[in-house]
């Protein structure tokens, strides 16, 4: 007798979704290998010219910038998120814990465009930060945050932070408190206990958070588009600028395929590099 009589029925939605994704990716791939016909929506015959165009230094630079922005965002999010996640796990009063959680996850409930506009208000030449600095007499001329990589990264950290904190908190909450107590009973102070016990044991959560933040940031569009103002571009912005807004769908598809390949490559490297750290967490 079949031990799992409903297996096929329950897996059917997942299979259908997977087929849909595969079909969409196949369509993008075939489009990337077709020629663009000026003034037409139809694609021409098969060609490699779209991928050859990607070899221009500009595109290499944008791909490199994208990786840099993703890496910076992931690292800064980790540095900001770790103390928050640690506090979230350590605090025992449910009211404070719930309040913290609500504040941390709120950015996820705001639309990307609304959130980005709010950052424009904060980072602009006449925005909150510059007004504050001017009011305190610290600057005379506004500091340029808009249309810079730092401005884009700050806004991206804001949206990546909730995901990072939730993943880190999940990792930290799985650490057996007995290990920390054992370290303390052997004379280790709080800092030493954290550095030699808690931090190594939380590495699987850290690596999962960094990997997710990196991949999450790679697909960012509205934030680099609006805060970057065309001066800071990521792969998704190029897809919009060169493909969608000028109807060159084959070139847009080739950018997507190259972006996907880059993401897979970077995440694979990250996965390999994180193996020793993940082992630290096995207990």
């Amino acid at each position, binding site marked *: 007798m079949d031990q799992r009589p409903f297996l096929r029925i329950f897996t059917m939605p997942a299979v259908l979704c997977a087929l849909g994704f595969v079909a969409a990716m196949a369509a993008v791939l075939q489009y990337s290998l077709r020629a663009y016909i000026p003034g037409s929506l139809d694609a021409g015959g098969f060609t490699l010219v779209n991928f050859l165009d990607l070899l221009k230094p500009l595109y290499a630079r944008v791909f490199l910038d994208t990786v840099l922005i993703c890496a910076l965002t992931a690292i800064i999010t980790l540095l900001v998120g770790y103390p928050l996640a640690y506090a979230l796990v350590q605090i025992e009063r449910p009211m404070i814990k719930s309040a913290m959680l609500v504040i941390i996850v709120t950015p996820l409930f705001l639309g990307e465009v609304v959130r980005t*506009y709010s950052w424009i208000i904060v980072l602009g030449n*006449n925005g909150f930060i510059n007004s504050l600095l001017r009011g305190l007499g610290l600057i005379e001329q506004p500091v340029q945050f808009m249309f810079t990589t730092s401005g884009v990264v700050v806004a991206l950290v804001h949206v990546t932070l909730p995901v990072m904190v939730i993943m880190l908190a999940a990792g930290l909450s799985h650490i057996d408190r007995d290990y920390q107590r054992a370290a303390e009973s052997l004379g280790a102070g709080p800092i030493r206990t954290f550095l030699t016990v808690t931090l190594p044991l939380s590495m699987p959560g850290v690596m999962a958070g960094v990997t997710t933040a990196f991949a999450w940031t790679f697909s960012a569009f509205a934030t680099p588009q609006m805060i970057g*103002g065309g*001066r800071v571009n990521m792969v998704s912005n190029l897809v919009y600028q*060169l493909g969608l807004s000028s109807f060159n769908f084959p070139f847009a598809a080739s950018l997507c395929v190259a972006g996907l390949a880059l993401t897979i490559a970077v995440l694979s490297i990250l996965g390999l590099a994180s193996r020793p750290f993940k082992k630290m967490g096995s207990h």
Partner: protein
Amino acid sequence: MRRFWLALFTLLLSVPAQAQDKLVVSIWGGSWRDLIAETVAKKFTAETGVAVDFVTGGTIDRLNKEKLAKGNPESDITFTTSHVGWLYANDGLFETLDTSKIPNAKNLADEARISPYHLGAWAYVYTIGYRADLLKDVKFESWNDLWKPELKGKLAAPDFDPSHIIVVAAMLSGADAAHWEQGEDKLKALKPNFKAFYTNDANSQQLLASGETPLQIVLSMNAYYMIGQGVPITLAIPKEGAVLGIDTVAIMKGSKKADLAYKFINTLYDPEIQAEIARLKKGSPAVLNAKLDPEIAKLPGVFTTAEQWKQQINIDAKLRAEKTSEWRKWFTENIMN
């Protein structure tokens, strides 16, 4: 109970019948949809008793949807920009128009007769808009004034369409849109003056209102909207002319309500409706017999005579449709990055 089922059955039958009676118009959302709903659609419904339904979305979304629905269009009428209209037409998505069924079209400006498939609905210009309060002692009499060194890091332009400044640079270099390459060096010389590139009208408004980019190549209608909101913008029309933009209307091929669609377009060209559109959007009527409020008629970028239309820089819509990708790519590679 039997009465309930009968009522439900009747209701279900009546829903598709009602939908059949509607004329479906595809247009951008927000104020554009409202503009048509409050002017053309209102009059059309009053005259024919046929309701108008709207399909709204971005330029590319609507184009892609209609391409996928080729032969069985989602809408009967489409509003889109003149060069994008050529993409519809080249793909066989537009009906060839029989202008004898649009009597009011006889008053169209020559420039608004875009193709046998689509006609201008209204016009606007892309020109120089600036914050005179932030750019003191700067005058813009020619497009050449954008190249002034004191404007370094002040200028913004649309990132979705660089055709305006590309053609202007070509003209200032003694060439035209078809030979735009001759303006490449001129445009490269403008690079230091660019501070940012805006994504849409809202982004343009935000950058001008905050003073982040006090100088823009801006859509006239958008500038007038901001002026109405209290942003002190000055709109300059250079001596070479501003860059003409035309939004167009067309009937979708395969529409089962072509006769109603013709009536709708004829209503669009009613001089009173055109004057109302001009009043609401501060744009140009597409017909020459619209009687505009003198306050509207005197605005830069609003044309009431054939001569005024001809004074503008008019990029051939078909050429623009063919060159958009090439221009966009060159601009991204050489100016934006």
